[in-house]
């Protein structure tokens, strides 16, 4: 077992995640001297899988005001240079805050599995 020490995107990077890679004999010999984590993507898996409702942006109505970007507690909304918001569904928790705060009410929360994934971009 070798250890890959990584940070979890889901909880403020505070969790040490030790991934097992079954290539070497198990044991402490491959452990670092102390616990630290390096920034990486998805060390505890894609936490967006916890979601029940998906936020879907209606780009025809979106005014690029960035309010959703500002409020998203998971910081999973990114902006293009012109302010167009994009949701990273790998990590979006589906909390619905973006939909609540959107002044244009152009974010719909739709039950997981009913979203048309082609619409995302």
């Amino acid at each position, binding site marked *: 077992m070798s*250890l890959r020490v990584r*940070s979890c995107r889901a909880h403020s*990077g*505070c*969790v*040490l995640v*030790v991934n097992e890679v079954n290539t070497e004999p198990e044991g*402490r010999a491959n*452990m*670092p*001297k*102390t*616990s*630290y*984590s*390096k*920034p990486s993507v998805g060390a505890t898996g894609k936490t967006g899988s916890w979601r029940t409702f998906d936020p879907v942006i209606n780009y025809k109505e979106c005014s690029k005001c960035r309010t959703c970007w500002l409020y998203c507690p998971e910081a999973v909304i990114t902006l293009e240079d012109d302010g167009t918001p994009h949701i990273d569904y790998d990590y979006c928790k589906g909390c619905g805050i973006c939909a609540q705060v959107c002044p244009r009410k152009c974010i719909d929360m739709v039950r997981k599995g009913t979203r048309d994934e082609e619409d995302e971009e």
Partner: protein
Amino acid sequence: MKTELMSANYAAARAVVSARVEVVAAYPITPATTVPEQIALLSEKGIYKGEFIRVESEHSAMFACIGASSTGARAFTATSSNGLLLMDEALHWASAARLPIVLANINRSVSPSWNIHVSHDDSMSKRDTGWIQFYVSSVDEFYHTIIQAFKLAEDERVLMPTMVNADGFVLSHTVSRYDYLEPEEVDKFLQPYSPPHWVMDPENPVAHGNIVFPEHYQEFRYSMHEGTKNALDVYLEIEAEYKKLFGKYFGGPIECYKCDDADYIMTSQGTIGAEARDAIDQLRKDGYKVGSARIRMYRPFPIDHIRDLAKGKKAIASFDRSVSYGFGGPVANDIRASLYATDIRPLIKSYIGGLGGRDITVPDIKEILLDLIKHEESGEAGPEETWHDLR
């Protein structure tokens, strides 16, 4: 190498310069105050070239050292008594983060009752924080042990923080002769610290202090235990190198005085071990085969050295300037435990005293050794624990 008359605290400040320490963070507390005070003065004069961070408490002082050491800087602090106790959380953090910080602790009794004089119960109560511990008996030994402590703590086989303890006032505010080295001379012995395990580097970011689940926590603790145990042999190497380079040697983990042919040994920590030499000489004149063993290294505990020391002895008086409430002298208990797995069975008597700075002088040490001899010869072991000069 140059010679000066100096107090232990000013000598510690000089050691910080000699070892090219890069960050000092400290908060004043009697009797350690003059260590950071002197470093601040040397800093203003441009002699100490590192950073001097003024902090608002000892807790912050140690965490500032932790931050500094995490970036790969050589870090130092000094404190005493309740200041050391306030650092407690950070002491555990430093050792578990494997940061080779060096701390000069000027032993002082813990309050209340308010008392600024020496007892060892401040540092003894930090026994299990994962800090290597030394106790010294002279200004000269304090200075050189601090320099050695950096090399020991930074060794890849060790990587544990190290505390060098000196008796408050007896050493901290008493001037005596010592030999010091210029940084250029120490360079031959002590290379710049370059962290071999982990480092805080903005170019290669890491987060430290993460949650570690039950699958791995224990292994990190085992690694600390291994590093600490390694410190014993690594220190022997370091001392040999230091002796070769600078001609200074303070006796290894346990400094023995006339122990080889002795039937009776008194063990002690700190300056009492220096005082004991005169008592030994006087008792030897009276025909008693006595010796003094001054325990310099308390963690890791030099178990094998204790076994060698105790072999063939009739009795050992272990003198503790501190108490583990409900179980007596901490070092006495460690000595007994070290021998249990062997068939070495001298009579071991524990003596506790000198608390709150009460003087332990030659007549006291003679009294203790004669008490030991009396019990051994009579075959009546007497009390396992004796509070010396309890009024």
